[in-house]
């Protein structure tokens, strides 16, 4: 897929909490084709501490309104600067980068999309894409507390939503791996994105039930296009770049102990 460097305009910046912001970007030109699971490298302007671009998952693409959505978790100076962007400001992005989640060949396949915290971001676009292809979509979303469950009504547009929180403030109490839906159904495909311990636990569950499992990694990156070789992960084929060979990996490719 051809990659672009684009200047997009902030159309909306919605504060979801003091930790999360939803950026809605647009352009006069039609947005390029972007696949679920891909990411963008965002240039952070006007920061004395941020030097490199920041890799951010594509949360959603709306081709009718020509909108690109990014879900930002405020962690350091770079994401803070992004969350402070004002409507009308220009953001420079490289996109679309990386590979994408794979689509099941069997239209009857039972699918589960599991996200933790800000890791839910790419699953919205994936769920929308899968629903448009006629699949039944099930989201399983986990967080520490109800304030970590983001964009709930958006996920509900595209499928069933199951929730766990560690403090029990929303959905079932516990971790995503403890949710009752995992015992009630047998899934063929499990897509996941979130903290590594969560993804490893999900991968282990998937292996047990013989489901195909794809995880999205978020290693620290410099270039985002396979030039610097900084973001590698260890696979059965040796070190490969997460930015080009990933961010989505089938768990059978990774050397995870699960």
């Amino acid at each position, binding site marked *: 897929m*051809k*990659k*672009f*460097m684009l200047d997009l305009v902030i159309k909306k910046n919605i504060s979801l909490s003091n930790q999360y912001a939803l950026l809605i970007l647009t352009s006069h030109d039609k947005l390029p084709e972007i696949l679920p699971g891909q990411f963008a490298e965002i*240039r952070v302007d006007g920061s004395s*501490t*941020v*030097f*490199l*671009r920041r890799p951010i998952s594509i949360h959603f693409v709306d081709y009718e309104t020509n909108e690109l959505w990014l879900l930002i978790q405020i962690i350091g100076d770079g994401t803070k600067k992004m969350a402070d962007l004002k409507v009308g400001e220009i953001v420079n992005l*490289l996109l679309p980068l990386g590979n994408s989640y794979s689509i099941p060949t069997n239209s009857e396949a039972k699918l589960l999309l599991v996200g933790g915290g800000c890791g839910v971001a790419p699953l919205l676009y994936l769920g929308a894409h899968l629903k448009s292809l006629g699949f039944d979509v099930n989201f399983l979303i986990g967080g520490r507390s109800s304030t970590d469950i983001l964009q709930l009504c958006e996920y509900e547009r595209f499928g069933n939503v199951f929730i766990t929180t560690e403090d029990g403030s929303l959905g079932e109490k516990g971790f995503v791996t403890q949710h009752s839906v995992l015992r009630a159904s047998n899934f063929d495909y499990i897509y996941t994105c979130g903290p590594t311990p969560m993804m490893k636990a999900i991968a282990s569950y998937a292996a047990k039930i013989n489901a195909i499992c794809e995880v999205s990694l978020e*290693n*620290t*990156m*410099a*270039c*985002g*296009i*396979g*030039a*610097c*070789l*900084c*973001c*590698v*992960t*260890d696979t059965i084929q*040796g*070190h490969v770049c997460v930015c080009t060979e990933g961010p989505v990996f089938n768990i059978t490719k990774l050397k995870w102990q699960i």
Partner: protein
Amino acid sequence: MANLDIKIGKLQLKNPVLTASGTFGYGSEYSDFMDISRIGGIIVKGTTLRERQGNPYPRMAETPSGMLNAVGLQNKGVEYFVKNIYPTVKNIDTNILVNLSGSIIEDYIEAAEILNELDAIPGIELNISCPNVKEGGMAFGTSCLSAAQVVREVRRVYKKDLMVKLSPNVTSISEIALAVEAEGADSVSLINTLLGMAINAEKRKPILSTITGGLSGPAVKPIALRMVYQVAQAVKIPVIGLGGIMNATDAIEFMLAGASGIQIGTANFIDPTVTIKVIDGIDEYLNRHGYKNVTEIIGAMEI
């Protein structure tokens, strides 16, 4: 339009802008963003005789105005380059140079012999300055004796342009430059990265898997500029300057300090089209100051 053509050692370039090894892949990574054949020269990823997996993750730490890397020369080896990369890169209409590294002198020689046979590769950049490999690499470039020895041995088998990349992690970079010049280097490029480190205070752990790594980016520019100036004063062969060049003004500063050409490295990660902007910016500078040829600004700093 000023004349940007320049001869550096045995190389004839359409402009003095090259890409630094390890920051531009094999060129194709950037071809969606621009016409890469406009660049004066592309120095491809550091290549060794045999495949190397490089260092474990994490390999990178962002630092003030720069970054540390500890990639450790991950590459598939020279034979893979010849079979799988060369057939594609040889069609790019510019100078494609291979950055060659090794752990022992015999490896350098064997790989240089193989590269000498590639018609479309007009030169190599001999890397005697990588700070991220356990043995060899930088060790060759930090003493005059070993730097001279590896250049002498490679020069014996490599007939085309031999650029030698110098380490800044030395007491006197000029002495190393003089030593490799005496053994037949066609040019020297400097600086490779500066040895540095970063710590995560909360976790009380080093950020890089190797603890130390190589610092690049604008943080190192003043040091690089000083070293380029000193080396250009000392040697007769051309000097290629690099270290934190982010724009045309930075590039021009290196040329005024005595560099015949420049390389752009870390800046490619922030703006994949920066090389083209630097080429156009040099042209604009030359026109604005009434220079007809880019060669006129080499070492033109007035004291």
